[in-house]
């Protein structure tokens, strides 16, 4: 029986690539990278990503903490394009994420001060889970670069570009731009939990021409672990396997459309 449970654990990978930390104004203030990792581990998640709005520090921190833990953290962020479309970006290593911050976020996010009374605090933690500062730049604003160019920039840094919660009625591909352009250069599309469950999606399915994924979009600790994608084939264990998986899916779709 023990063997059976262990075996079952091994073949079912639990993935959640959309979690906000306290650095997102909308994320709960106690969402430090160390607490998120602790909670995710307790809930049995295997692969996660912290994707704050136009901010990278906590994603980097989580990646560093994860090095001595039994959980994989993929460096990532949730960017806001000029059209106000939310776009998830994932990278193999933190240096690419830092480059994205230097080249795009820092340069092109308007330098406006966050109003914490309206949007909430953007709390910065350190490695040990102590508060070190408040980030005062308004991260909810849009980066002055259009969606297509943002995607190109992410690809130049060898990352993955995935429009977030495309079915939502705000800040989504469909709310802002009307429909999915099947020629677009997305590596996948993310749908909301609600749509994922309602339409019965599972890992490996397509929406339009793209592989479809889903993240919890957690904003507080209690949200973590309630939703995750199940990888029953034991395919996705880190960034590289995720990237390879999406590429294979895309090729599969291209072959399918040629038939």
């Amino acid at each position, binding site marked *: 029986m023990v063997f059976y449970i262990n075996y079952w654990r091994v073949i079912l990978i639990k993935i959640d690539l959309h979690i906000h930390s306290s650095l997102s104004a909308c994320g709960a203030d106690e969402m430090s990278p160390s607490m998120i990792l602790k909670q995710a581990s307790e809930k049995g998640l295997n692969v996660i990503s912290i994707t704050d709005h136009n901010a990278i520090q906590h994603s980097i921190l989580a990646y560093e903490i994860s090095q001595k833990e039994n959980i994989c953290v993929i460096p990532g962020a949730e960017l806001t394009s000029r059209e106000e479309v939310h776009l998830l970006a994932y990278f193999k290593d933190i240096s690419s994420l830092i480059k994205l911050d230097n080249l795009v976020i820092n340069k092109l996010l308007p330098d406006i001060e966050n109003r914490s009374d309206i949007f909430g605090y953007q709390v910065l933690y350190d490695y040990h889970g102590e508060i070190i500062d408040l980030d005062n730049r308004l991260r909810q604003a849009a980066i002055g670069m*259009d969606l297509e160019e943002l995607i190109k920039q992410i690809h130049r840094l060898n990352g993955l570009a995935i429009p977030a919660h495309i079915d939502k009625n705000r800040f989504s591909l*469909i*709310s*802002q731009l*009307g*429909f999915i*352009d099947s020629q677009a250069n997305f590596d996948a599309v993310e749908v909301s939990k609600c749509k994922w469950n309602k339409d019965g999606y599972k890992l490996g399915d397509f929406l339009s021409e793209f592989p479809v994924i889903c993240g919890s979009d957690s904003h507080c600790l209690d949200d973590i672990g309630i939703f995750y994608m199940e990888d029953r084939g034991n395919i996705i264990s880190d960034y590289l396997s995720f990237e390879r998986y999406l590429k294979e899916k895309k090729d599969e779709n291209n072959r399918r459309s040629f038939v």
Partner: protein
Amino acid sequence: MKLSQIIEKSDLEKVVFCSDDEIESGYCGDLMSDVIANAENNSIWITIQAHKNSIAVALIKDIKAIIFTNNVELNPDLIEKAKDEEINLLKSKKNSFTLCGILYKLLESDSNKD
């Protein structure tokens, strides 16, 4: 009112001009989902959302012309697509509020004449 008259009277820059259509109404919005739901046929659409999907939205809704306000930058893809699909593209240095005011007055006085 004819599109050419609107262009002249509200000081618009022609980016793509393919047909001098009769404009009956207008709509202003930057969310394409909203424009798809609410714009009327034979209308002129005022927006800052310079993305090539806007051409498809114009086709779906039978919008005759799109005016991009605030002097937004238009990428060549968008202009090419408008030429292919024969959608008039115009540009204005004014913001959407000011331009809507001007166009509203124009179309209103035109319909009073009839």
